């Protein structure tokens, strides 16, 4: 920037493939005072619509990007600056930012990692990653999801770690055949990706059935798993919303699918037509219907959960640090089951349903980083541990690849405690 006192607000990068974003509405006006976490603008990408929050406090002096205009990721869309900064300086900064927006995305724009594939037991498994150095994190999605479920998390985490996300068998662009749908088939895929990455040790983050899968991988080889972050994991109690699972597997049309998918979120306005259309396009691929129904047999015993993750966790013998994260408004698997995750640090997230990593990505990122920090300091007394970035990982955001700043949803006031080997139940 031309003047150090000017803080640019930039187009965030939500998802590895995002190159452009479009402002659909400015929430703030020039002259407004904003605090960290205040909503700035509604932004639409090819995949999702979200609200950009302020990463810095101050006075909004200039709005640069027009509503409806395509802006390259990390392009400056507004300027925050104190009143002492003169108009001429601001105008020069606007001209600089304007030139970047007008230039658009260069044809050779890098930053979109190639999707890689590995053959695991005759099945093609797809995965994609970002980040050059540091510990390996592998993100494992849930039932009916895919590697893009992590779009708000993968890029910011990649500022510090090598972060990969895979498509489980039956999902995304991986092979659709899941055999009899056994948990082992999914765990094999995760192991295969770790092998392909050459990762001797890795942190696993698993959501829903992906949590049960991550645990199954840890049971096989506890020494290989540096930590486990389980997000609303399956298998820690009998209760589950079986109607949701069957409804998702059976839905044939947008009309049938939308009310089912709405149950995933605390804020149902997140369920856009695009989100439903993308899910429907996935469900209509040859083989997906069979895969989803085969996996139902593994997930459900009547209307109860079949996987026994509590037993799996016990089988790891406490060798792996575990954190469990749950949205308080989870309507698929009740958040009360967090209590059953023995020996884990527990984090409950306000105003999030079954997808806290989409609804409150900043909080989930902070929890993942805290878990990794705890794993690194495992041999030292907890009290000596250096607290990680508080709240929503602002440090990671500032140094994020592609100038990532800001989260897609409103900041929560939920305090995140410093790491501890004690079992903490926030709130």
């Amino acid at each position, binding site marked *: 920037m031309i003047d150090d006192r000017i803080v640019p607000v930039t187009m965030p990068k939500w998802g590895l493939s995002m190159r452009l974003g479009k402002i659909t509405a400015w929430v703030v006006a020039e002259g407004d005072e904003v605090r960290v976490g205040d909503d700035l603008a509604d932004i639409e990408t090819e995949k999702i619509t979200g609200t950009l929050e302020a990463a810095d406090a101050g006075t909004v002096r200039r709005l640069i990007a027009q509503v409806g205009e395509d802006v390259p990721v990390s392009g400056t869309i507004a300027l925050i600056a104190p009143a002492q900064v003169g108009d001429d300086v601001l105008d020069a900064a606007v001209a600089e930012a304007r030139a970047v927006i007008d230039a658009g995305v260069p044809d050779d724009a890098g930053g979109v990692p190639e999707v890689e594939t590995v053959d695991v037991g005759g099945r093609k498994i797809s995965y994609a990653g970002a980040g050059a150095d540091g510990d390996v994190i592998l993100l494992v999605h849930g039932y009916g999801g895919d590697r893009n479920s992590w779009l708000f998390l993968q890029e910011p985490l990649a500022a510090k770690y090598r972060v990969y996300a895979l498509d489980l068998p039956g999902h995304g*662009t991986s092979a*659709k055949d899941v055999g009899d749908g056994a948990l082992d088939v999914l765990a094999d895929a995760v192991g295969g990706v770790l092998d392909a990455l050459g990762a001797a040790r890795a942190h696993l983050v698993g959501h829903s059935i992906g949590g049960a899968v991550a645990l199954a991988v840890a049971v096989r080889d506890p020494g290989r798993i540096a930590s486990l972050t389980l997000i609303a994991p399956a298998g820690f109690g009998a209760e589950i919303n079986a109607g949701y699972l069957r409804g998702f597997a059976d839905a044939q049309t*947008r*009309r049938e699918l939308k009310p089912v998918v709405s149950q995933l979120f605390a804020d149902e306005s997140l369920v856009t037509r695009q989100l439903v259309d993308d899910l429907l*396009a996935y469900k*209509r691929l*040859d083989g997906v219907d069979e895969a989803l129904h085969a996996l139902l047999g593994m997930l459900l015993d009547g209307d109860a959960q079949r996987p026994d993750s509590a037993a799996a966790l016990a089988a790891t013998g406490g060798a792996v640090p575990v954190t469990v994260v749950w949205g308080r408004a989870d309507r698929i698997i009740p958040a009360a089951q967090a209590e059953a995750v023995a020996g884990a640090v527990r984090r409950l997230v306000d105003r999030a349903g079954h997808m806290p990593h989409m609804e409150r990505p900043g909080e989930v990122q902070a929890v993942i980083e805290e878990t990794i920090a705890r794993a690194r300091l495992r041999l030292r007394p907890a009290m000596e541990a250096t607290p990680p970035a508080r709240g929503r990982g602002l440090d990671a955001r500032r140094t994020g690849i592609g100038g990532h700043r800001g989260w897609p949803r409103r900041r929560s006031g939920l305090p995140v405690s410093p790491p501890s080997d004690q079992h903490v139940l926030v709130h």
Partner: protein
Amino acid sequence: MARSITYREALNEALAQEMERDESVIVMGEDNAGGAGSPGEQDAWGGVLGVTKGLYHRFPGRVLDTPISESAFIGAAIGAATAGLRPVAELMFVDFMGVCFDQIYNQAAKFRYMFGGKAVTPVVIRTMYGAGLRAAAQHSQCLYPLFTHIPGLKVVLPATPYDAKGLLIQAIRDNDPVMFFEHKALYDLAGPVPEESYALPFGEANVVREGGDVTIVTLGRMVHTSLSAAEELGRDGVQCEVIDLRTTSPLDEDTVLESVEGTGRLVVVDESHPRCSMATDISALVARKAFGALQAPIGMVTAPHTPVPFSNALEDIYIPDAQRVVNAVKTVTGWSR
């Protein structure tokens, strides 16, 4: 993000994947292989605009060049379908339907009904339609309303590469005769298409843009014309909901009616002639079933009731353009008693 391929490539991929999956699928038509009987020229064309290119060598014996006799080869395809194959016949221009119409509307469309449900006719007739290629009055028509009129036929008009692949796969797997309309101006349109196989169900309209002020119901090439108009209107603060019917038979009435119940205003954009067309059909549907929701008369944007002109200048103004859609929407939104 799926890779991007053209409408033409999407159709080719759908044919190839279905031929791979099911050996009863065959392809036949004029120049589908390209120059039968002249070694070295084989597969030179792959159909007049190249949709079947490459299939001849990949699937030996299953891509058939036919004589220039639509009555013969469309009839043969329908007969082969009743006998167990799944033929995809290419009627080069829909304008040529005149010489094979009996085979389609009096035979293929009737078998399931007249044989008490015991006969199936899984034939697909792919055909090109629409103006814009300087091909004059006998190679430029939009005759889909004629087929929509006939019970027993399914009528499909994909507007995008994604829809082209998924709807053609569904057409091939469907046990009823399907008329599959490809607009000649869309073949080079590129868009995201999954590499894997997928079928899109018939009778499900696609809401391609959401908006609360006016519903635009459209199909085929006019989807893109309507989207351009909606974009322009959006900048003036008029939010259009644009619905691509995708199939005219079966017709997704619910999506149209629900949208008009929300917006209270309707413009139908149809490249066909104004009489007995999709424009009149959708207008009648909404007038009958959503009359109470209407806050203004229904607008129609169609071609004029004339043959398609050969003159470049006249053909250009014959085809409905975005400006005419904008004008129609403004008439509907500006209407008062």
